[in-house]
């Protein structure tokens, strides 16, 4: 199982039946493909869809129907389509149960940085700030370290924040961690790794709820 597959196959377990979920650009949008075809969920896409679903067959693909990442989606029965003001009203009114979102950095306080790397990458804000600030539950999907092996899970974010204290849970390729008043608590490990080795790859201090238990 690849790093990506490990994150996604764990992430899909976060989606509870009957919920409304937004899947951010990048890793999160791929979570949809891990959902059973009959799973009871309404996927929100901030460009104006409630009830987006997996890509249609080629002959049914609609060039006027994409998700916020540009993918050609289909619609489930009971879907609705609406303008961007209504779409973000839904977000700001906290009618979304869960947003899964990517991160450049995430920290022990639940702060999230995912929109700007000053001087290097500044494609814009998109819907990230409102999703991060207003969704009832934010789960970050991220590799545990960047491609150079540097920690992405920090004591305190250094990049400009998307939103403060917004993250409930972090799912990396190595572990599932919850943001608590006492900092990050490791709930599950997704690979065989010692507490010490996991801590070594993490700048933020970790508490191990799994200590001596599951590995």
């Amino acid at each position: 199982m690849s790093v990506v597959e490990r994150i996604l196959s764990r992430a899909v377990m976060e989606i509870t039946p009957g919920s409304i979920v937004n899947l951010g650009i990048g890793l999160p949008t791929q979570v949809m493909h891990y959902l059973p075809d009959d799973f009871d969920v309404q996927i929100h896409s901030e460009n104006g869809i409630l009830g987006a679903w997996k890509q249609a067959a080629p002959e049914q693909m609609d060039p006027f129907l994409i998700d916020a990442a540009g993918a050609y989606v289909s619609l489930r029965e009971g879907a609705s389509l609406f303008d961007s003001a209504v779409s973000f009203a839904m977000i700001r009114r906290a009618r979304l149960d869960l947003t899964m979102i990517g991160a450049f950095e995430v920290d022990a306080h639940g702060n999230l940085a995912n929109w700007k790397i000053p001087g290097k990458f500044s494609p814009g804000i998109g819907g990230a700030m409102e999703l991060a600030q207003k969704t009832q539950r934010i789960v970050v999907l991220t590799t545990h370290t960047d491609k150079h092996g540097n920690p992405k899970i920090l004591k305190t974010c250094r990049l400009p924040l998307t939103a403060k204290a917004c993250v409930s849970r972090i799912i990396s390729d190595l572990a599932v961690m919850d943001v608590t008043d006492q900092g990050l608590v490791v709930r599950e490990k997704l690979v065989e790794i010692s507490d010490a080795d996991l801590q070594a790859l993490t700048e933020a201090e970790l508490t191990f709820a799994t200590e001596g238990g599951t590995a």
Partner: protein
Amino acid sequence: MKKNRTLENAIAAIPSGAVIMVGGFGNPGTPFSLISELVRQGQTDLTLIKNDANEAGHGVSRLIENGQVKKLITTHIGLNKGVIDRMNRGDVEVQFHPQGMLAEKIRTAGAGSFGFLTDIGIDSEITRPEDLLDWQGKTYKVEMALSADFALLHAAHADWLGNLVYQGSAINFSPLMAMAANHVIVETPDLGAPGCFIPEQVHTPGAFVDSVVPLASLTSDYGILEHHVRR
């Protein structure tokens, strides 16, 4: 009163220096034919307001590549590296807003209001001290309304009173821009006579629309982008 116009006449109303809202989130809703004519006519020093910059060689990206655009007010241009490079070089000024804030600023102008109080981004670097308002014991960020001289929109269906119906994810910013711009130009591949819509199902009432341009057909611009198809 018939609002039908030819492509050429409709776009000729736009002077250089105009502020123009453009509908569309990615391809859906982008008025490719109106934009092509604006490229052909060559008006310059334009300020564009659009969710994104489309992709290289498509839609508003062509106006930017053609040097017609002074400023772009947008939310995310991550799918257009060429425009990011032009922004970084200073060839085009780019102003970013959170997506729902851009929508709401436009909608606020469209409602004839002047601004609104929010908490989005209030703790982030996008908020300057001068944007903050203490009011009745709480602190808000003031977002001012964003209006425009023109809006260029694509509607799946229209009648010649200007009533519009959108399709799929092509609704996005269009109903908001129709309300917010002083002169609203709409292209449609399906122009009908009044009475062709169920009144409750009209997305944009004709009162907001000034010109309707019938399109004989949709070019390949409106089709599937193969690189976005998941294999």
